[in-house]
């Protein structure tokens, strides 16, 4: 089984999670590669995308797994070099004997937010989280539900103009757009989706490690 790490940047950020499945499948087929197909009435490629990223957000750490025969990780990357649409780039691949179950083990996503003087909100934001005052609105079918989600913020790291934030992703999720919406509203900032970039996916494998580290261990 192959696990592939890819970038989704520039205009590709406007592709939905569902469309991504088709886009990646076609990229692989254009490379002359043939994924394994499910059996049954409506066969589909055994290609599984990891946790979705909200529309409009860029990432350099997206993952999918793929059942494919007779292709090494290296060959896969070489063959698909020029077959992806703009903004999609396969950057790393691992060949493992076992299923990595990346989606099941994913617990978080780390985003880098570049914004002028972002570090100035540090103290106040820490207070808010400590006092469990981080509220987001969630639209349900009937009305708007307000939820306190401090426990879904796993880590904050500031330098002057950059904020690294790790948010829950997987079984429990705090979407990056909701996070930004909150700090924009509370601190009168104008951070937009283009200022944020997903840089890592976090796995809980006993320890919290990045998906890349996890995959490297599995490959060894």
């Amino acid at each position, binding site marked *: 089984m192959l696990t592939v790490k890819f970038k989704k940047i520039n205009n*590709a950020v406007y*592709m*939905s999670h569902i*469309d991504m499945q*088709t886009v990646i499948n076609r990229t692989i087929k254009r490379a002359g590669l043939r994924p394994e197909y499910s059996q049954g009435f409506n066969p589909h490629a055994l290609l599984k995308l990891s946790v979705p990223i909200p529309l409009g957000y860029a990432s350099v750490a997206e993952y999918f797994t793929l059942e494919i025969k007779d292709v090494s990780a290296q060959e896969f990357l070489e063959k698909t070099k020029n*077959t992806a649409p703009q*903004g999609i780039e396969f950057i790393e691949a691992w060949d493992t004997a076992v299923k990595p179950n990346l989606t099941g083990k994913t617990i978080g996503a780390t985003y880098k937010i570049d914004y002028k003087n972002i570090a100035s909100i540090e103290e106040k934001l820490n207070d808010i989280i400590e006092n469990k005052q981080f509220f987001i609105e969630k639209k349900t079918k009937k009305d708007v539900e307000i939820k306190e989600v401090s426990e879904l913020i796993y880590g904050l790291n500031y330098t002057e103009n950059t904020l690294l934030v790790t948010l829950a992703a997987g079984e429990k999720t705090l979407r990056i757009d909701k996070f930004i919406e909150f700090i924009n509203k509370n601190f009168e900032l104008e951070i937009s989706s283009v200022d944020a970039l997903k840089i890592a996916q976090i796995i809980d494998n006993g320890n919290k490690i990045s998906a890349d580290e996890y995959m490297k261990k599995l490959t060894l």
Partner: protein
Amino acid sequence: MRFEEILLKVEKPGRYVGGEYGLPDVNKPRKLNFCMCFPDVYEVAMSNLGVKILYDILNADKDIVCERCFAPWIDMGKALKENDIPLASIETRKPLKDFDIVGMSVQYELAYTNILYMLDLAKIPFRAKDRDDSYPILLAGGPCVANPEPFADFFDLICIGDGEVADLEVAKVVMKYKGNKQKILEECAKIEGIYVPSLSEMKDGVCVTPVKKTVVTDLDKAHFPVKPLVPNIEIVHDRPILELYRGCYAGCRFCQACFFYRPIRIREKETIKKYAEALIKNTGCEEIGLSSLSSGDYPDVCGLIKELSTLADENAVNLQLPSLRLDSYTAELTRKTRHGSLTFAPEAGTQRLRDVINKNITEEDIERTMRLAFSEGYRSVKLYFMVGLPTETDEDVLGIAEIAKKVKRIYIQTTGRKDINISVSTSVFVPKPVTPFQWVAQLPIEEMKRRQALLRSELKKVKGSSYSWHEETTSFMEGVFARGDRAQSALIERAYELGAYFDGWSEYFKYDVWVQAMNETNTNPLKYTGEQPMDKPLPWDFIDFGVKRAYLEKEYNLALQEKTSEGCKFGCKGCGANKYVNCKIQKD
């Protein structure tokens, strides 16, 4: 708000950002910028074969860069206006106004207001006469050019017929005389197929300057996009298309495409196979499709499908077949391309009326095919008909329900079961230019409603059947424009000002707006939907389509006598279209 921010607020932002696999080099040095436009949304536009062909041809030219721009959906249109962002191309976000040529493919009458919608958003004046040398040359094409008069005032040039050759010639002229609109128009008027409304002479409201339709004579050698753009979002027909042939052998008297696209030009089987292989490889798509007016009439269609499905199987792609004419249906095809539901279009409910429209399908054909289909395992049938065909009586309308009953009977006989699904759909007949029915009257709206209601009540008695029908008012407006004249540009403009656009999307079609616009512009719709005198020139008579008016008259007279005429599959019937090139006649 910046454009990037708007993208996050609208539905399906993927419509506006491009980046598809297969993009040409839009940064190459060029002498001409062409923007290919389509007055409907991305998903519809990108499904259009004509757009794909022309985009490919233009970009293949070393001196031309062709980009795309499609009608933004309502939410995006509003946002562009509110933020004063002019409509721009997908590829480089260059405003439409800055192109040398803006081409617009006009596919259906109800898209006319969307032409104005796009021009409005692009800040380009609607009428050709109000645009000076600084504006792009506006060029129209597409099937609606069979009668271009309703929108003629909006365009500088209109390409009548296949755009493959003419569009390139127009581009060369514009390249040469850029900035001198008058000279460009004069030179383009000399190109076969190019109609220049502003230079044409009008007599009694009808254009009298002759224009000859242009055709690609050798389809087999014609340019075909084997590396089309592969969209990143799901589109309407999300598969690459193989065009088998242009023109049609059948000769159904209501069908504009049949007569407009003659002569019949075939793409050879080997060429199609070669293209199929390339498309599978270059797009990576899950499915490929076939396209032509009646694919079942392609010479040796079974042989072709057999070879294509082998190729498809080898590459793990699905071969999607278009609906086939009932009489060309064979068990072999059904088995190769198993679908959930069988689609048939008898078009009329009785043999008499089918003879009138020259739909050469008999009751026996229907029975034989149904028996075959049901024994092959089909449980669901879609039947397409038209209401309001010339000479139609209540008996013909009720005949549609009779066919549904018969289909059900055959199902029970063949399978011993009753679990059939029959869905009957009717559209309303719209008399179209360049057909034998171009003179006949369209039904008044009230009569359309009455006949639909009659059928509805009769079909209620057929358990397992469902009935859907076209909205009468949209068919009526389609009828108004189909045989419209130059005076209608004022109507289209007024309707747009009053809020009509995306009329082709039934949920946005506002009939009351059209009624108001017709009142305010003194447009009598019945002038266009009523019977047209045979002794007077029609608004599109200045166009030489190849098919002669006398031939259409002859076919019309046969229709009135309830007589069929054999299609042209096995011999030329002398319609006149073969003056371009001899139609491919099948000798077997």
